[in-house]
Each structure stands twice: as structure tokens, then as C-alpha cells.
């Protein structure tokens, strides 16, 4: 049924229908509305789950880790400082192969403190062993939840999934969302059947010492499984599409790429702006939207960029002292002798990425192709060599 709702509530509706047994989270802007709404569902008897209050994100992540180990389907959500406070536990969740789903409302990292959107929080955890999907709009954020559980709980996968949605832009944005039917979700996502769990009848231990004779193999297994999910993700997306009648999750989205000499690569909600920009432009510009950042779909990207003369990576995160992380990875896939690959950083800390920003980007691409790390929309009057107050 189509509803005009806020992104956070679209996500909460989806979580309710996936029926987690335990939900724990700590409030943080701009994620708070998600768990606030889930807590209401529990209080109103619409979701039969334990909603556990905790004193920090580290505890929230630890709590869902424990509950998942007991064989429960669990959910948590966070953002920015909360995500990096969770980070110790997030690496453990992946290493212990627990199929936890969380939503990250993407937000900038301190300092200076900033509650607005960019991708630095999630990108900083790209090596944690979590699958990372980036939604473009609220429909996708809603639809990704049940697909994330389906991917995570596949007995051949058993890895956690982080669904990323842009803070404020999506979480607080009102859009028409085709809210799934509960009975269709029930059909798509059966209840979680844990292949291993804590059980006093059959005692076992998780996450214990892995000395030098075994540790390396556990990491190799994580990596191989991540690579295998490059097949699982589109497969689950196809199954979703056939049941729900709309597009399911995929690794990338190609928009107007065929025959376009210039292809822009980006992630998340800014892709909507880029699509509008392409539609209104006389030039041959295409968009490659990366949906799955981890696992990174190398082959699909390489194939999609085959005909591109100029590749432009626009991202909302930076590896300080190097360049944009997505830029580095895209560059590693292409032949720099035949393709000019430019990298741009924009929209940090919630700075709007507008058509003017994209005009500036396309001008730089024309005038000096191959810039590796150019910031867009810079107010140079704010930058001084001396410390000032």
C-alpha cells in the first residue's frame, strides 16, 4: 500500500514485518526516529519483540550480538559517532558470523561536531566484514531491510548487513513509499533458523582465542564468503522482484551509461540529483550507482565502464592523506592510459550537492581531466594559514 511517510518510519515498518525477537539501540540523530517507532510498535503490541534500553551504542551492539548468538533475529540502528563507538563489536559480529541487520543513518564524524549527512561513518568501517548496501531513496531503504535479512541469514553467507541511508535527506525526508504487504514479506523471509547457537543441551563457544595456527583461515573464509555474496545479492534481488513486483537489490545500477563518454560514479541519495542533472543535460553523461560497497562489485563495474572515456567519481568521504576511498578502488579497476579518472569530494557534513556543484565538477573534468582529489564548493575565505578564532 502506498503511504506518504518519513524514511525512518518506512524502515521501521519494514523491520516490524521482519519480526526481530530483540531490538536494541541508543538514540542518535538522525537515526533516532527509526528505533523510536519500533519501540512504539512493541509498546502497542504490533511487534512481539524485546526492546532493550542500553547506555551506549557499544552496549546496543553487544546486546544484539548476544541475542543473535541465542538464535534470535535481531535489529539495531545507529549513526556517525554511535557507529564508530560500536566498531569494536561490529568486527566481532562479522568474525563470529552472526547475521545481524543494522541501519546506519549516514552522518559526518566529529570534530567539529556535525549532525548532517555524509558517508564518512560507514566508509570508515568498510573493512569490518559487514556487507554495506547504500539506498538511494526511501523505497529502497524500506525494501532493503527484508532483503538484507535474507542475504545475511543464508546458511552459506552468515554475515551481517549494514543498510545505509543518508541522514536527514532520507531519514527525515517524506516520500511516497509502497509499503510491503506483511504476508508477502512472510513468504519472502521465513523465520530465522540458526545453523549454530548457544544451547545448554549442545554446549559450544563462539569468538574464542584463535591463535596463529587458525586465525588466518578465519579471515580468508570471511573474505571468500564476501566474494560469494556478489552472487547472493542479485539473486535475492531477483526473488524479491518476482514476489513484490518492483526492483530488488543489486550490486550496481546503470543509468544512461550506454553510449555515454562520461560516466559519473556515486552512492546514495545524491544519485537522484545526478539522474535529474543527466536528464536535463545536452551532453552524454551516464551514472553508475554503487549499491553494494562491500562486497565491492569489481567485475560488474569494470564491465559497465567498458565504453567510458571519462570516469568521474563523486563521493562524500575521504581517506585523509590519500584520496576518496571509492576513487582509489575504481581507479584500480581501469586502464588509466585509455580512461581519464577524476575524483571529487563534495557534500561533507551536509553541504548540499546541487546542479551548480555538478556544473563545477563537469567543468573541472573538461579542463583538467584526471584530478585525483578535488573538493567541490569550497569557500576559500574560510581557509587560512594561521590559527585564528
Amino acid at each position, binding site marked *: 500500500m502506498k503511504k506518504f511517510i518519513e524514511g525512518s518510519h518506512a524502515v521501521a515498518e519494514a523491520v516490524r514485518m521482519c519480526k526481530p525477537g530483540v531490538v536494541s539501540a541508543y538514540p542518535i540523530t538522525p537515526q533516532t526516529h527509526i528505533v523510536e517507532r519500533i519501540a512504539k510498535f512493541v509498546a502497542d503490541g504490533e511487534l512481539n519483540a524485546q526492546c532493550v534500553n542500553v547506555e551506549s551504542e557499544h552496549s546496543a551492539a553487544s546486546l544484539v550480538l548476544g541475542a543473535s548468538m541465542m538464535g534470535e533475529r535481531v535489529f539495531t540502528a545507529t549513526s556517525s559517532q554511535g557507529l564508530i563507538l560500536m566498531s569494536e563489536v561490529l568486527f566481532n559480529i562479522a568474525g*563470529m*558470523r552472526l547475521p545481524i541487520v543494522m541501519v546506519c543513518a549516514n552522518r559526518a564524524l566529529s570534530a567539529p561536531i556535525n549532525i548532517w549527512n555524509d558517508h564518512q561513518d560507514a566508509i570508515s568501517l568498510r573493512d569490518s566484514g559487514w556487507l554495506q548496501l547504500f539506498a538511494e531513496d526511501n523505497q529502497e531503504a524500506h525494501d532493503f531491510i527484508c532483503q538484507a535479512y535474507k542475504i545475511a541469514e543464508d546458511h552459506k553467507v*552468515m554475515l551481517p548487513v549494514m543498510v545505509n541511508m543518508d541522514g536527514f535527506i532520507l531519514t527525515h525526508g517524506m516520500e511516497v513509499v509502497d509499503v510491503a504487504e506483511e504476508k508477502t514479506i512472510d513468504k519472502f523471509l521465513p523465520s530465522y533458523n540458526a545453523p*549454530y547457537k548457544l544451547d545448554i543441551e549442545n*554446549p*559450544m*563457544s*563462539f569468538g*574464542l582465542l*584463535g*591463535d596463529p595456527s*587458525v586465525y588466518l*583461515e*578465519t*579471515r*580468508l*573464509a*570471511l573474505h*571468500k*564468503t564476501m566474494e*560469494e555474496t556478489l552472487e547472493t545479492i542479485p539473486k535475492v534481488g531477483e526473488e524479491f522482484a518476482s514476489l513484490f513486483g518492483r526492483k530488488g537489490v543489486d550490486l550496481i545500477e546503470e543509468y544512461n551509461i550506454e553510449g555515454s563518454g562520461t560516466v559519473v560514479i556515486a552512492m546514495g541519495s545524491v544519485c537522484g540529483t545526478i539522474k535529474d542533472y543527466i536528464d536535463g543535460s545536452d551532453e552524454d553523461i551516464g551514472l553508475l550507482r554503487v549499491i553494494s560497497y562491500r562486497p565491492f562489485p569489481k567485475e560488474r563495474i569494470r564491465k559497465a565502464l567498458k565504453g567510458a572515456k571519462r570516469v568521474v567519481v563523486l563521493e562524500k568521504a575521504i581517506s585523509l592523506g590519500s584520496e576518496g576511498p571509492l576513487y582509489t578502488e575504481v581507479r584500480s579497476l581501469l586502464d588509466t592510459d585509455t580512461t581519464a579518472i577524476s575524483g571529487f569530494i563534495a557534500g561533507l557534513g551536509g553541504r548540499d550537492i546541487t546542479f551548480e556543484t555538478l556544473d563545477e565538477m563537469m567543468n573541472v573534468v573538461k579542463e583538467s581531466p584526471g584530478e585525483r582529489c578535488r573538493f567541490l564548493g569550497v569557500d576559500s575565505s574560510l581557509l587560512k594559514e594561521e590559527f585564528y578564532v
Partner: protein
Amino acid sequence: MFGPLIAKPGSSKDNKTGSWRTVKKPKFLQKDCIGCGLCKQICPEGCIVGEDNNTYEADLSYCKGCGLCANVCPKKDIEMVPEGEE
């Protein structure tokens, strides 16, 4: 794909921590031992066995060589000796 992920109970026995010993190992002299059992109680590996006077000894396949037993013995009947010494 999975690597070593889960352990069933009892796996500590398979982990022969004796290989962690570096310099010295305990030598139970069994001369002046009064059977007080302090060495057995203090051993962090629980690898000392014995009941009566002059019967205590350590299982060197688990002993990490920490020396607590020699330190606690009231009769100085345990000595830390270099590896390889009889």
C-alpha cells in the same frame, strides 16, 4: 565458506600450553615436601598433581613456566631450572 568458528567443550586440553615456556621449568625435588598442596592451588594452568608428601609434580605439556609454585612453596622444595636440565 567458514574457518574455525566454534569450539566444543574440552578444547583447552588440546591446547598444549607447555610450548609457551621460554626459559625455566619447575623441578619438584620431592625431599622436604609436607604435602600442603599450595603449589597445586596456585598453579594457573591446574597442571600440578599430587596427594601426599613428596608426590607432587607438574605436567610439563601444559606448564607455562610462570614459577608461582616455586615461589609459594614453604619448604623451598620446588626449584626453577633451565629448560633441558634434568
